[in-house]
């Protein structure tokens, strides 16, 4: 057993943390959320060129630095601490994950572009009717010569406004919600018949409704196998969920530390409010939740290569735990800040908002509890 980071991993973390401290302060972020673009392509280029983090989780054969899930975890935790908007999760973890596992020439080429910072991805999986069920798909892909035609409506596709490529799940067979018949496609966002409606989300990021109308893609667009893509989807979503847990850990750490700082300096009744025992205990609870969120993130990340059932239980346990922590720590942070916590002016509220959305991304607490139940109690029944 070893919970230490390698020297390379520590350097990765430090370099990224330093960059974000210098260049990604809260005020800059706030300004960016109000621009038309809503993100900073220059920061993305710096991620690729100055810091090289976009290649950290790819193999050397792909032109990366030879890392994997642990590198994603390190990066995501730092991005969480700085409330970074840019689509690392969508591009490197989700996009990169599908491309790595599916393989093939087209995939390899796109990985090169991701590492170079010239391609960005978004994951168009959820549909208006489907809640968190990854198999609940009405979007269809039908054969058209050697290629495919895709039609359907994808809901709240985060980071899609900035993406050059979409990963789209669709039915090539089977009925809605059946495990069989799910396939995964790589679609260029500029493809004819693909339209989006873009909008901001409450955490200061952007998302789109994606409408596919007979969108033609070639044979090489199919990632993985036709009709049994669901295990691949589940694997990548588990990897993304673990990465999201890492981002949440960063957020929770900031919520906890920010609250501690505030409570130490805010005085009422002639004394710092940190001296009130009821607030002390609440801050201790926040601290414990933030610490255990890190533990659960490690646990999930280190199980990503386990067999599917074990991996799923590990990831869902972590997400259920961390989803609850996002709610309780976020709410405590606002409460202890009093009126100041309610303002758009302070960073603390923005961490709370991001933590709140993380709660529901890739499955709510209820969803992950149920998944754990189904998988881990199946034998007991």
């Amino acid at each position, binding site marked *: 057993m070893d919970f230490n980071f390698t020297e390379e991993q520590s350097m990765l973390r430090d370099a990224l943390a330093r960059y974000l401290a210098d260049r990604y302060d809260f005020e800059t972020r706030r300004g960016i959320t109000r621009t038309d673009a809503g993100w900073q392509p220059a920061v993305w280029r710096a991620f690729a060129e100055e810091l090289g983090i976009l290649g950290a989780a790819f193999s050397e054969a792909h032109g990366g630095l030879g890392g994997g899930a642990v590198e994603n975890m390190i990066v995501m935790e730092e991005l969480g601490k700085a409330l970074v908007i840019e689509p690392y999760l969508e591009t490197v973890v989700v996009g990169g994950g599908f491309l790595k596992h599916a393989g093939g020439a087209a995939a390899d080429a796109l990985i090169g572009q991701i590492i170079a910072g010239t391609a960005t991805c978004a994951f168009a999986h*959820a549909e*208006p*009717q*489907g*809640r*968190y*069920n990854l198999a*609940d798909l009405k979007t269809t892909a039908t054969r058209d010569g050697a290629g495919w035609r895709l039609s359907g409506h994808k*809901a*709240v596709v*985060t980071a899609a406004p900035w993406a050059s490529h979409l990963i789209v799940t669709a039915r090539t067979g089977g009925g*809605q*919600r059946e495990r069989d018949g799910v396939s995964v496609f790589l679609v260029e966002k500029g493809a004819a018949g693909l339209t989006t*409606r873009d*909008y*901001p*989300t*409450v*955490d200061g990021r952007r*998302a789109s*409704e994606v409408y596919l109308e007979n969108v033609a893609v070639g044979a090489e667009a199919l990632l993985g196998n036709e009709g049994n893509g669901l295990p691949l989807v589940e694997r990548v979503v588990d990897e993304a969920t673990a990465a999201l847990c890492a981002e949440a850990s960063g957020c929770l750490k900031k919520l906890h530390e920010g609250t501690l700082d505030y409570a130490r300096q805010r*005085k*009422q*009744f*002639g004394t710092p409010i940190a001296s*009130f025992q*009821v*607030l002390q205990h609440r801050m201790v609870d926040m601290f414990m939740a933030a610490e255990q969120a890190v533990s659960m993130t490690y646990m999930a990340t280190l199980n990503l290569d386990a067999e599917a059932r074990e991996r799923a239980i590990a990831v869902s346990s972590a997400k259920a735990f961390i989803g609850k922590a996002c*709610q309780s720590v976020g*709410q405590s942070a*606002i*409460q202890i800040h*009093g*009126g100041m*916590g*309610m*303002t*758009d*002016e302070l960073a603390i*509220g923005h961490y*709370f*908002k991001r933590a*709140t*959305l993380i709660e*529901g991304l890739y499955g*709510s607490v*209820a*969803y992950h*509890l*149920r998944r754990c139940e189904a998988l881990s109690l199946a034998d007991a029944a």
Partner: protein
Amino acid sequence: MNLEFSADDIAFRDEVRAFIAEAYPAHLRGKMEEGEELSKEDYLAWHRILAAKGWVAPGWPVEYGGPGWTATQRYIWSEELARADTIPILPFGINMVGPVIYTFGTPEQKARFLPPSLSGDIWWCQGYSEPGAGSDLASLRTRAERDGDFYIVNGQKTWTTLGQHADWGFFLVRTDPAAKPQEGISFLLIDMKTPGITVRPIITLGGEHEVNEVWLENVKVPVENRIFHENKGWTCAKFLLAHERTGIAGVARSKRGIERIKAMARAEAGDDGQPLIRDPDFARKIVELEIDLKALEFTELRTLASESAGKGPGPESSLLKIKGTEIQQRITELALEAAGHYGAPYFRGINQDGNAFPIGPDYSRRVAPTYFNMRKTSIYGGSNEIQRNIIAKMVLGL
């Protein structure tokens, strides 16, 4: 002991229900449903209709314009308002400063301020909190110095709700800096148009402009606008706090909120494609909330009963505030959960006509901003920590 309403009460209920159905302006219907931000005109439209009917201030004595209802009738009234999902009556004039004026004011002050407060011609705001004086309100530092027939007021207030619309404010100011904190405070009514007053917006988490900073720089306030004695403003403030807390439990509104969650859960599909309301986890959360609301409702009814038996609202009302706001907050948590993916989009300023090409179901539109916004309820009106301190001290004697 019994739970039945009397025949008179039932007749009263039918009367007010029919009135609301008929008189509530059509253009305001649905605004509460969607959690939309309300304009000054929205608030005033409904306020004026009720004022004309003589029902805008159910708690006021008849001689000042109240309808003379019993506690049970007042309870029925608030139930019916919530049932119809009407715009709330702003508390600042009706529940806060009005009772202070008719209890502590001079005949001239009553004649001057009560009628326009009832009619809606004066919109009041509450100038209590300061950057340095929140929970510890008595440490407030805004200074009022006597200069002949005037006070010259300097200082800063904050969190002033809807102060951007206010005609007048009621302010706590320090008139004797040498006295003990509670003893050097006076209660002033200030015309918000007086030179030297600057109101600046504070934007809150959901993007709302609901609260403000109010800066006062050499603001001249006639001494005749002071309520009660100089340096005895704390008496008014304490009296007002008790009034502020009546109705804070928000039982009827929360019932409405739970109905809304149920409607969402019937419309939304769970992960298995069945209506969310059939999901045992979600259904249990709704039921737990209903049970807790029941406990609150019956506690409030018991409080009401003892009030109508002549006991004023005591420190027990802190219980109503704590439990009421916790329930209000949980309702917003459940709404966010029920909305699923469509809780995320942020619509402020986008698509305000509301019909062009909507994203997601209408009921999801403001669930996240409302969840963020309702965190305020455990902070304001005496935070829930402060309320627990009050119960510990005043009720339990600890």
